[in-house]
């Protein structure tokens, strides 16, 4: 049983999806989702404990040798992402029941959970697989199910958002698979470890260069790197609340994992960053994301859309860390992957609770919400402070690593830019605080009460985590640093 955990990590949610589709009842489907999510978390934590000392679990599917078969490969980097994704799923599960029941027609609730579990299986699969083509299949599994999730939003704009995401996502996955095909032609293998070994000798051949370009652009579409982010704001804004929480916290993070895997482990740091100008290009786009998308966020009227733009800006910090290609830079990127997942999870859950009580979440709708839903608003503000990077919150730790990384390179201007960008985050979080606490509650809010405990507790678990990980950094920053070491040292 224990040696089959890597396979179970993916198979369990996949079968859970099947069962959720078969039971059909809203509560039964939810129960399946909750059980599967918690079980996935247990599996991923066990896997993380096995690889935490630097070991690597290599699982051969069907007993085939990795050179011809599919290998699942768990090291500390992938285990970290597995824990992140399944932990978010486990926290979202209790939150989901009421929120989904309120936003999805009853006969479609089971289908919603089916899609949700398939998406979970796909995301876990991307993180665990050591096979390039398998990663493509999981990428499409998670994407196709998330298109369906987004399309279930109540506003008709959700349909257009899902359609646009489908077009962009398919092109992204197409680019990725073209890149994989080119590498496959040159190296004769789809196993990431073997690819890495064989690419080293033929680095500067034209197909490999083309493959790098296709893969970088393809995954950048998936992780919403500015200016390839246009699908994201509408998708997050109009998706059902639970789908927004889950996708915002996990989907882009898994794409970032895949990106880091290719850039550092498969192509190799010296090739990508020393021989090619990826540092300059990625850094430029990252800064553009932080300032561009951040500024756009300030002027949004819908809170979900505002924090969706904020996600694009925050992904900018992560790619900025990756583009520096130093140990502290990559550590900063990985820490922010974890912290941003917690922060955005908490924020979108708080907004989901507001939507549950009020039905909408534009600035006019939530005016004075601080008095009517004090605990939800407090969680929103707390996560917002962490987003800004206030000392004592998780966001501060990420920014700290990024600033240290830029100073190590002697790039004072970059450190200054990172600190300055905080002001933009401050601007849009301040707008939320102003609307929530300093405005009179509108008439529509007269009967609004605090969100039910079922939704409050998960929100506060994540909001509390953003503070906890700002004080006790052992778990997040310590793990991220080890993971960064593994990434920087190659896939071995």
């Amino acid at each position: 049983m224990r040696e089959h955990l890597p396979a179970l990590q993916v198979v369990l949610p996949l079968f859970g999806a099947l069962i959720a589709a078969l039971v059909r009842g809203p509560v039964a489907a939810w129960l399946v989702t909750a059980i599967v999510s918690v079980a996935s978390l247990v599996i991923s934590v066990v896997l993380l404990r096995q690889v935490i000392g630097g070991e690597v679990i290599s699982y051969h599917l069907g007993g085939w040798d990795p050179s011809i078969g599919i290998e699942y490969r768990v090291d500390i980097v992938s285990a970290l992402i597995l824990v992140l994704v399944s932990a978010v799923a486990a926290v979202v599960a209790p939150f989901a029941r009421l929120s989904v029941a309120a936003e999805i027609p009853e006969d479609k609730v089971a289908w919603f959970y089916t899609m949700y579990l398939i998406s979970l299986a796909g995301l876990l699969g991307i993180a665990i697989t050591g096979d390039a083509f398998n990663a493509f299949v999981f990428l499409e599994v998670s994407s196709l199910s998330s298109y369906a999730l987004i399309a279930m939003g109540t506003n008709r704009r959700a349909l257009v958002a899902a359609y646009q995401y489908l077009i962009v996502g398919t092109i992204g996955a197409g680019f990725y698979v073209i890149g994989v095909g080119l590498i496959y032609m040159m190296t004769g293998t789809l196993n990431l470890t073997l690819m890495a070994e064989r690419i080293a000798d033929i680095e500067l051949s034209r197909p490999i260069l083309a493959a790098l370009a296709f893969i970088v652009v393809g995954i950048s579409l998936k992780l919403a790197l500015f200016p390839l982010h246009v699908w994201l704001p509408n998708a997050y804004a109009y998706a059902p609340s639970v789908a927004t929480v889950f996708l915002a916290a996990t989907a882009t993070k898994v794409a970032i994992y895949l990106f880091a895997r290719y850039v550092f482990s498969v192509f190799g740091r010296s090739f990508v960053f020393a021989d090619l100008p990826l540092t300059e290009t990625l850094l430029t786009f990252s800064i553009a994301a932080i300032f561009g998308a951040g500024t756009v966020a300030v002027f949004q009227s819908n809170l979900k859309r505002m924090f969706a733009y904020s996600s694009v800006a925050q992904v900018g910090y992560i790619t900025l860390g990756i583009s520096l290609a130093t140990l502290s830079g990559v550590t900063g990127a990985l820490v922010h992957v974890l912290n941003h997942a917690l922060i955005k999870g908490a924020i979108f859950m708080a907004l989901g609770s507001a939507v549950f009580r009020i039905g909408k979440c534009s600035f006019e709708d939530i005016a004075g919400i601080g008095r009517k839903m004090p605990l939800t608003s407090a969680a929103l503000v707390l996560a917002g402070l962490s987003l800004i990077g206030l000392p004592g919150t998780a966001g501060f730790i990420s920014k700290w690593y990024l600033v240290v990384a830029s100073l190590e390179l002697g790039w004072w201007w970059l450190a200054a830019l990172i600190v300055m960008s905080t002001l933009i985050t401050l601007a849009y979080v301040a707008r939320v605080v102003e609307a929530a606490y300093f405005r009179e509650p509108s008439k529509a809010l007269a009967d609004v009460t605090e969100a039910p405990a079922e939704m409050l507790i998960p929100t506060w678990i994540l909001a509390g985590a953003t503070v906890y990980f700002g004080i006790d950094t052992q778990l997040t920053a310590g793990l991220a640093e080890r993971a960064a070491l593994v990434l920087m040292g190659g896939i071995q």
Partner: protein
Amino acid sequence: MSDLVAAASGFLDHYNQYITIFLMVSGLYIVIARGNMVKKLVGLSLFQSSVYLLYISAGKVHGGTAPIIDPGFTVYSHPLPHVLILTAIVVGIATLALGLALVVRINEAYGSIEEDEIFERDRDDK
């Protein structure tokens, strides 16, 4: 003259790659240039077909037969790309089906499948 022949045969040797590139680029062009949502999906399908061709032609071995073991043959084409593309075709079908289903729903909700008209209607009912 012989240079020209050499160039032409060099071109023809890789004709499959040129078809791949043509499909890829024309598919992407349709996705970008067309406002009709069904036509965009047609472009997307063309784009995906180019990926199929890219893999399949890489698996072809000159003089090789279909990869079914038979005492009469010794040279086979590489079977793995075919298997991969079988999976990719399934993914492509799922994408197209889901895309078309979304277009049907969009048509029900908006009464149009032209992108600019849909954006206009969204702007109107702000």
